[in-house]
């Protein structure tokens, strides 16, 4: 934008200042300071943190996009502010402005620069998506980006109105209401629903994947620090959508093993009543898969709160 046209004297005979240069000099420090602040001060605290590989990817994506966005935004704002101050209408001046209809060089530069920014963002996004095995986003039932190494820890996430439960097929398929993960291991979430669409969102892990009825949606992550994980539902699923929250834990491998061993024996009786582990369930399994709530003294699960989605046969 700046280098638009020459420096012709205006009516008063005063030489026209070089507006382009002035705007550039105003913009440069603003953009620089903004970028430095974003990178060094704000960056490490940007959501969703760096508790897992996928969260770290998302954080860096947000950081890098902010670093690219700030100068663009600063340019428009500085330019705008400059224009409003310098090129405002003065009392008593009834002349029209200069009849500039356009400027091919400026337009081409603008289109070129925005295209480069945008295309590089698209490439960057694709790389970041493939790198850490899908960046924590739901990848459908046949994921194309998987973590390298052996079979990851399988955790099935079952959404139902309005609870989350988890099954651990590699440990006898018990079902529990608490999400427990070991640090430093690849995790494969198999996410499904028994009634309507929910969205499993483990905030600190940077995992978000819709829980669709009759569909298995896979998301990968690898926790790298121990700590608490907020689990929420990110897709409106009816009355108590806001209450589909739980807290998960990332613990050391030994603590995790100890937990699975206890849970497996403690829940053995219940596990027998559950339908065998599959990637999706018949909605009629709601009754059985909801038993874990009653065990835990909870209520509210069971689906079918509204009507049935199944056609009635007259």
């Amino acid at each position, binding site marked *: 934008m700046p280098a638009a046209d020459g420096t012709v004297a205006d009516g008063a005979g005063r030489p026209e200042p070089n507006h382009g240069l002035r705007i550039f000099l105003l913009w440069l420090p603003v953009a620089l300071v903004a970028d430095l602040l974003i990178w060094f001060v704000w960056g490490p605290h940007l959501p969703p943190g760096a508790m897992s590989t996928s969260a770290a990817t998302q954080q860096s994506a947000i950081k890098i996009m902010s670093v690219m966005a700030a100068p663009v935004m600063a340019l428009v704002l500085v330019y705008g502010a400059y224009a409003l101050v310098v090129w405002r209408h003065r009392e008593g001046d009834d002349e029209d402005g200069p009849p500039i209809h356009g400027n091919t060089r400026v337009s081409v530069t603008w289109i070129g620069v925005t295209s480069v920014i945008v295309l590089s963002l698209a490439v960057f996004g694709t790389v970041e998506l493939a790198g850490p095995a899908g960046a924590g986003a739901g990848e459908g039932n046949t994921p194309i980006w998987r973590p390298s190494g052996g079979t990851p820890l399988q955790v099935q996430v079952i959404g139902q109105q309005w609870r989350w439960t988890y099954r651990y097929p590699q440990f006898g398929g018990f079902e529990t209401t608490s999400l427990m993960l070991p640090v430093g291991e690849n995790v494969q979430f198999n996410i499904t629903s028994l009634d309507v669409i929910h969205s499993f969102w483990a905030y600190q892990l940077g995992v978000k994947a819709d829980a669709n009825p009759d569909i298995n949606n896979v998301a990968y992550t690898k926790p790298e620090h121990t700590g608490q994980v907020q689990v929420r539902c990110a897709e409106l699923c009816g009355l108590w959508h806001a209450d589909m929250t739980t807290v998960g834990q990332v613990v050391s491998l030994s603590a995790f093993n100890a937990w699975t061993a206890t849970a497996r024996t403690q829940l053995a009786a219940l596990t027998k009543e559950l339908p065998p582990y599959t990637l999706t369930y018949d909605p009629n399994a709601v009754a059985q898969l909801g038993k874990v709530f009653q065990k835990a003294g909870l209520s509210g699960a069971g689906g079918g709160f509204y009507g049935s989605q*199944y*056609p009635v046969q007259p």
Partner: protein
Amino acid sequence: MSETATPPPGTPDLPALTRESEEANFFHEAALNATWTGVRLAVGALSFAFGCFVFAYFYLRSLNSHGMWHPAGVKGPQPWAGAVIMALVVVSALVQYVGLTRIKASKKGAWQASAVLALVLGLAAIGLQVWELLNLHFFPGSSGFSSVFVGATPVFVIVVLAAMIWLETLIMRVRVIPAISFVEQPPTYAEAFAVQRFQASLSAFTVLWNYLAVVAIVFWVLFYLTA
């Protein structure tokens, strides 16, 4: 320009140009163009509407979730009904089209006859389709296919009905237009305009009705041939 509209006025045998008639001509010309443009746009919009169901058809078919797209045991609609409905619409469009070529040769009566026939055929197609929907051998929600079938056909029926109403108004309108006007410029602007507007409307209708015949064939292929 519309196929049947004769060149714009200003032709010598009309009364001399006044400011009023100049403007009337201007807006008349615009209205003819609007009919031409409008019907093509309507075909575009309708394509997206029907496309919605065609998309549903292929999407559900390719997903075939739980093997329930069109499971073996579930009955489909009666093949003969589908073929007859399609044939009625296609023949109606053809008949009307042939009539159109006749009216250009001042054979107004020929078009009238073919239009009435086309109307009857179109209404018969509607009737048969409604009858078929009221006497289904299967339950609407018994498969993905049956859902798309039960959903899409009424939409087609509604659009065909609208087209038939249009045809009916054309049949009513043509009664007061002398046959000679289709080959010779009538003496007054008002009459010339009326004839040209009728012609524009008629050719627009033809575009729509021929398009619907194509849709009928597509639906027949989807619902009866390859299901």
